[in-house]
């Protein structure tokens, strides 16, 4: 029931389609584009709109200062929750805050790239995808996100090109716009 409600909410939130396109990928791909550790292996179409199941965090001793810092997984989950509820700006700020604290977390940069892309900030999105790929070169999802965005950049931008929101609602697996070049 909850997932049904969320899916309907997501459908009503046009912007969410952008995220869905990003993560729509062949089932044999191991890693989702939205890089939360638990997302692997889920149905990639509905994955972004489902709440992630929380796994117990690995126990290790932390200092008081470290304890006050939220984990990457929690930030990614919260950002995903924001996206599910259509609050992309909120997701962006949380991911940016976390990325500034931990610049080596590839998943934060990848997810930040997705949010930037949805918000129409393609240069920032490209930089974020590149950073994610640089940190985790073997991660197929990061490479795929970057490649897709770069393909779009290479496409001729004529006057009929839809605005970013409209672009998000097109199927990236079957791009409506010519790739140009």
């Amino acid at each position, binding site marked *: 029931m909850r997932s049904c409600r969320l899916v309907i909410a997501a459908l009503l939130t046009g912007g969410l389609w952008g995220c869905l396109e990003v993560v729509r990928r062949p089932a044999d791909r191991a890693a989702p584009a939205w890089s939360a550790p638990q997302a692997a292996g889920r149905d990639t179409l509905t994955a972004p709109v489902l709440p992630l199941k929380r796994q117990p965090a690995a126990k290790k001793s932390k200092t008081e200062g470290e304890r006050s810092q*939220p984990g990457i997984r*929690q*930030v990614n*989950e*919260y950002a995903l929750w924001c996206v599910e509820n259509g*609050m992309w*700006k909120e997701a962006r*700020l*949380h991911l940016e*805050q976390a990325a500034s604290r931990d610049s080596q977390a590839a998943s934060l940069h990848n997810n930040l790239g997705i949010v930037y892309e949805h918000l129409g900030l393609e240069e920032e999105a490209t930089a974020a995808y590149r950073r994610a790929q640089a940190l985790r070169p073997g991660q197929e999802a990061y490479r795929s996100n970057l490649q897709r965005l770069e393909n779009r950049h290479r496409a001729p931008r004529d006057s009929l090109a839809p605005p970013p929101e409209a672009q998000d609602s097109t199927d990236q697996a079957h791009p409506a716009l010519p790739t140009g070049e």
Partner: protein
Amino acid sequence: MQSNAKRSSALLGALALSWIGWATPLAAQDILTLQLQQGFGQNKVRYKDFKWIVMESEHLQIYHESEFAPLAERAVQYLEEGYGHISAVLRHELSSKPPIVIFKSHYEFEQTNIVQDFLPPGVAGFAEPLRYRMVIPFNGDLDDFRNVLVHELMHIFQYDVLYKGPIKRLSSNPLSSPPTWIMEGLAEYATQEMNTIDEMVLRDAVLTDALIPLKVMDAAWGTGNVFLGYKQSHSLMSYIAANYGPEKISRILRVWDSQNDTDKLLERLIDLDMDELDERWSAQLRKQYWPLLQTRDYVSELAHKIARRPEDQYQHYSNPRWSLSGDMLAVLSSDGVEEHVDIIRLDDGSLVERITTHMRAADYDMLTFGSGTVAWAPDGHTIAFVAKKGPRDAVLLWDLYDKRLKATLDFEELEVIESLDWAPDSRRLALVGSSNGQSDIYVIDVASRQLRQLTGTPQRDDYPSWSPDGTRIAFSAKQKGQFDIKVYDLETDRAQALISSPADDLWPLWLPEGNKLLFVSTRERINDLFVYHLEEQQEYRLTRTISGIMTPALSPDGKQLVLATYYRGRPELYRMDMPSWPEVKKRSSELAARVEDRSGPTATLPDSAALASTPPDSTALSPAGAVLDRAMALLDPQARSPHAVKLAEISQPLAAPGEAPPPAPEAPRAALPLAGDEPGQAPPAGEEADTTGAHNLPRHPYTPKLEFDGIALQMGYFGGFFSSIAQLSMSDLLGNHSLALSTDYVASQEIDNDFNFALSYTYYGKRPTYNMALFNWNQFFNDRQDRIFLYRGQWVRGIERSRQSGLLANISYPLDIYRRLDLSYTFVDEQSQLVWPVREAIEGFATHLFRAAYVHDSISYGLLGPTTGRRYFFSVGRTLALVEGDRSFSHLEGDYRHYLRLGRWSVLGLRASGVSSLGRDGLQYNLGGPAWFLPFYSGFNLNMGPLRGYRFTEFLGSRVLLLNTEVRVPFIRNITFGWPGTFAIPAVDGSFFMDIGTAWNEGDELDLWPLHNPHEPLVSGPSGEPQAQQLHGSVGFGLLVYFILPLNFEFAKQTDLRGNYSDYEFHFSFGKSF
């Protein structure tokens, strides 16, 4: 304790009703089974063991704790001043010294035993007419404290004028009291000037044509907008005083004594009936308020309403705090049934996340509602809010990342916590804490849980706000009856006054650049937004609204503002763009010019000159308006002594038209270093000088002394029996000791006279409640063996007497507001004998019953039944057979009820209950019919209901299983009728229900499915032989009407849920649904 009160009153109630049972001798009111009945109810927890001191002044007795003597001395000062003024105006001296009980906080006030009811946060104090007791908490604001004291003292004067002394009240007809609007209007009028919030509510009602008609105000009191009722009543008294002379006010109560009719009272007093007064008064208000529209804006013209969906009409949001991006708001929400911390969308107000779901049933008593009791940290993922836990508030930190409560910050030093504000580093929280009755600014270091007190003045400090660099905290500080804005420098530990005007300056907020403060000020007696530039030392008006502005919150980027206003009888949230600095200056000039255009150059005083003595917007008033305006000027605190009471002033002649206006307000004070802002420092000299010498008054420790609360006498005659019943109750002044005695002397020519009595003592002074009762109790019945005797030539049926005597001992220990343990011991010696026409012993036995129960009750109640939450109990009991013949059985009972909200007022109620009475002398329970709340039928005490569609007591057995499901939907809310007479019906619900249950005995075979077919004969009752018992079901519908008390009209059909139905059975019953 509700449960104990219920138990002891149930016993006395049974005794009181003895003549009914005696007149219709059906069955015993069995005291043992009364003791087995487990009650629900939430607990009034007495966390504190109070040590009381009594101080006597010339006209009053003050009860206080020794460590709060200064507060009590302040109360004496206020009350003696108030007494003098009220006495002079009413020309009346109280017939006795009223006892006034002072609590240092509302949380301690809630523990009073003077009334056993719960006292919610909205109750500011009370006075009762029986013994003239006044019970008042201090809320941290001395002005509020004085107002409440004098308000309640006025009620004591009213009782004394009307009833000529405390004891006469018992014999007076309570229906002859003047209407509530007169009583409360007088008290409001006598004590406090309308503040800007009061005026906002009244003005909104005038401008939206929502004034409560005077004709129906009394009947509708309590069912609609109660706050508006108070303000209208206040305004009506002001109108009468201003237009017909203040002496009319003092005559109202005396005229009522001879009239007892509101229309006649008004005609004799001011030569108007209610309709005429209502018309003239409301016309006056319209003339006063409508012209404001010419120079003022609706908030909806400046901002966008946040919650605007139809389903939001009953949802109230308050205290908004922004999320990191501004996409969401954290708010306190209330729909009149539940209160929560919610996250809502900024764009449409829809709910995103409810943080506090299930909290009520968990570890916290309730959410603390108040300004700033929720705060969203700048880290974006921590929300702080305040909840009461045990005797005091705690700050709860909710982590949005983990979706869990990550910390509870609880400080013994702080009883009440309000006005949270996060530091920019998200590691410290500024707040207002009340400790020992004094409200000051504190800072908590969240990681180390260290508490640091910043201010220490006796008057209230409020609304702390961190500067963007985290080095300063702006706050509102009350001094000489008004709030100014100060800034506390955390590096130098000094506070400095920043904004000071003759109006209240509230809710300071730093703009991101750190050199400007946004704040609300009550200049022109309407709350509006201003910006103060710290470097220019200049302030600029940002709004000139008609409805006023409260609790503003600035978005993290400083570009938007969320604020609350009051429109169409309810607070609403709006979002407004924060203008750029040039726009602020431009808007301020435009707003000043707007007033200048409308009113001419005399009204062009700069806002900083504070137009407090100027009528709102200086709009032209009619001659009648001018009279009212002069009366309103008396309400202006600047035109009065800070401690004066209005009645004293209106007892002086009003200034004639054309007379010189009140003196000009003082100029704004310059920023000065403050005295008395250091923790523990004495208040500024002369601020609240004690003129009564209260500190020299004699005092002595409180000694409990029982006094009468009430006495009732009844006499009756039936069938040769004469019965005289006397009931009396006594308690000490603080209500810790309660004694109740009920006697029933039964006399007959043919049967020995009987003296029945029950003596009950309850001690409420500690956290556990102790109750003990002794009783001797006789009842008469027809001979159970149905023997016929020849008596004086006639065949008559024998009469049997059942005597029960013994004692009850109960202890109830509340674990918290929701949970408690009940323990009890019951000893009953029962002797039955045939007493007429021949004497013959029938049987005799004794019962020693030990019982324990665990009770959980976290439901919210509506008028017609529970609305949400759950309640359950488990009860076990065992008798002890000390000698042969003593009763022997074990008792097991469980009852679980869950209520789910299907809408604002729609409820799905689920219940599963079962009872088993095991052993040689197991009790027989009956099942069938509706759930009654009065013991009108035999076997009431052992009735497990409801099983509608069946006759009362249709099934009988030592074991009972019952399942109930009921959906209640609202039909009508708050309807007032004008004929016959004026009366209100606050609620009518419809219900649809399904009941399934059965009763059986040991050895019976229980057949759970299928249910019994209603077309087949019933197998019920104890037959001695094991039987196959089926479950019995019913479905039906009903109409639930709240008229004085809940009335239930229900129609039910028996069914086996497989298509077989009986005809409808109609039930009528009283009381709330299960």
